[in-house]
């Protein structure tokens, strides 16, 4: 709330009477009314509608007795925990490299951003053809080096792995730039002081960089986990749940229940199962993030 009184924000005039305050409230309300209207109609109302349709306990009994649903919960957990954390850890390390002041590093960082700029869909399609068991470039190279070819997308473990690898490929650049920005905000004097104490690269990271980036790192982890929890595009286009519905995540399974099986209430129940975790994450984020 400290930001309210920052320079440039007009506080309500001290001498203003009640009527002026009231008109400020009205003006603020009017200027934000389009936004509030949109959020009420397309966020609050759909949530209430969804909860209403998902309120029948029979739906939960049905989906929890479905082995595909239980496998999906495990897949989603793997996807969210492993893919996000590997990605962010790599991003933290890479941000240190991209922070070096060599000119060629700047060129490298620019090229490094390409996966972020290319939309997810073409990237996924390219990965899919690379991983094709008969004509993909991966298996072509493997057999060239005398190794056995692998049916990447036709067996559950490697298919789920492909989803995670694509996630890391696509979103690593974005989080890396965030961490580069975080590193640039650390005052240089701290490193000078550490240098006087004889600290090397590792000690700099452990005692200066990481403690100062910790909050940012935690916020990014939470944020990325929530976003990934609802991911539909990557799993759907990479495997579509195949082979044999073994690689679904929550969003793709909900889509399958709703649109392929005509079970709207099961689809909604699938999301509702993840709602408590999501709300907990959102609550934590709201407490930590200042806007």
């Amino acid at each position, binding site marked *: 709330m400290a930001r309210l009184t920052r320079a*440039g*924000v*007009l*506080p*309500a005039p001290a001498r203003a009477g009640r009527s002026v305050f009231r008109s400020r409230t009205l003006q*603020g*309300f009017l*200027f*934000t009314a*389009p*936004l*509030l209207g*949109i*959020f009420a109609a*397309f*966020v609050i109302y*759909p949530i209430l509608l*969804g909860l209403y349709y998902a309120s029948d306990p029979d739906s939960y009994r049905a989906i929890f007795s479905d082995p595909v649903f239980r496998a999906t919960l495990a897949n989603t957990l793997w996807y969210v925990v492993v893919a996000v954390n590997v990605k962010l850890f790599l991003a933290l390390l*890479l941000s240190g*490299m991209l922070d070096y002041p060599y000119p060629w*590093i700047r060129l490298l960082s620019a*090229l490094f*951003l390409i996966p*972020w*700029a*290319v*939309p*997810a*869909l*073409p*990237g996924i*399609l*390219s*990965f899919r053809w*690379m991983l094709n068991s*008969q*004509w993909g*470039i991966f298996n072509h190279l493997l057999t060239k080096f005398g190794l056995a070819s692998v049916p990447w997308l036709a067996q559950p473990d490697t298919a789920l792995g492909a989803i995670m690898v694509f996630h890391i490929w696509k979103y690593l650049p974005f989080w890396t730039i*965030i961490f580069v*920005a*975080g590193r640039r*905000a650390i005052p240089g004097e701290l490193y000078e002081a550490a240098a006087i104490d004889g600290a090397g690269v590792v000690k700099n990271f452990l005692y200066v960089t990481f403690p*100062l980036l910790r909050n*940012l790192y935690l*916020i990014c982890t939470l*944020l990325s986990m929530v976003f990934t*929890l*609802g*991911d*539909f595009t990557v799993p759907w*286009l990479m495997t579509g749940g195949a082979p044999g519905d073994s690689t679904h995540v929550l*969003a793709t399974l909900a889509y399958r229940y709703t649109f392929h099986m005509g079970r709207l209430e099961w*689809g909604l129940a699938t999301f509702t199962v*993840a709602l408590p975790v*999501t709300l907990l994450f*959102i609550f934590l*984020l709201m407490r930590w*993030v*200042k*806007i």
Partner: protein
Amino acid sequence: MRFFLSLLAIVILVWTLFPVYHMILLSLTPTNDLFQPGLYISHPTLRNYVYTMGQDNPFVRYFWTQLSTSLIVSVWTMLVVAAVAALGSFAMARMKFRFRRYVSGLTLFTYVIPSSFLSIPFFKMMADYDLIDTKLALVLAMVTFASPYALWVLSDYARSLPPEIEEAGAIDGAGTLATFFHLYLPLIVPPLIAIGTYAFLYAWNEYLYALLLLTGEHNIPLPVAMSNFLTTDNAPWNLLMAVSTVYSIPPVILYYTFKRYLVGGLVSGAVSGT
């Protein structure tokens, strides 16, 4: 150290660029060579692009219609988000009013909740209002999910403007609305262009809501049409990659042009705040 860094740089470059190189390579591959994988091609051809542009294949029969659907939805999203966020940011950054906290809470909530969680009720709602297969439905969804970030970037920028704006307005005897249009709006043009770009890209890249809300070859935007290639076993992958490349060009240009506005936002507060 230098050697280690160079080695790492090569690994990063191969990892980053190979899938994109593979996409472009495939788009230049003639159909006869499609089933002979390799790291380069011996007979590059632009035929796939010619087919795409000329709509000369059943898979790309409605290419231009689908491209313009994508474009129309993205432009409308851009305009509405810019308008809504400009109005909202004026209140959030330049006024102190009673319900400010609730607005920012609701904004953060919308930003954070995965949009797929709302997709099925949203679809149901649009079906109830008979808006399925209209661009309006998709624009409404895109506006909803793109405006929180837009509001932050604009509000953040607006907070850094000097307090003289309202003072000048007050001296001229201008009302709040006049101050907004004549004094505030001209000052926020640069970030307004940037968040407009962000909203455009959000809609351009969207897949799930486009898949749910629009059906039929005439109505669907380009990404949904591309994913429909996958429903058959004999999809022409070289043609699909040509469409993919065309589809990727606008975002790549816009991302690189507006790079510094498209990162940060929510986390920029965390960067400077800790």
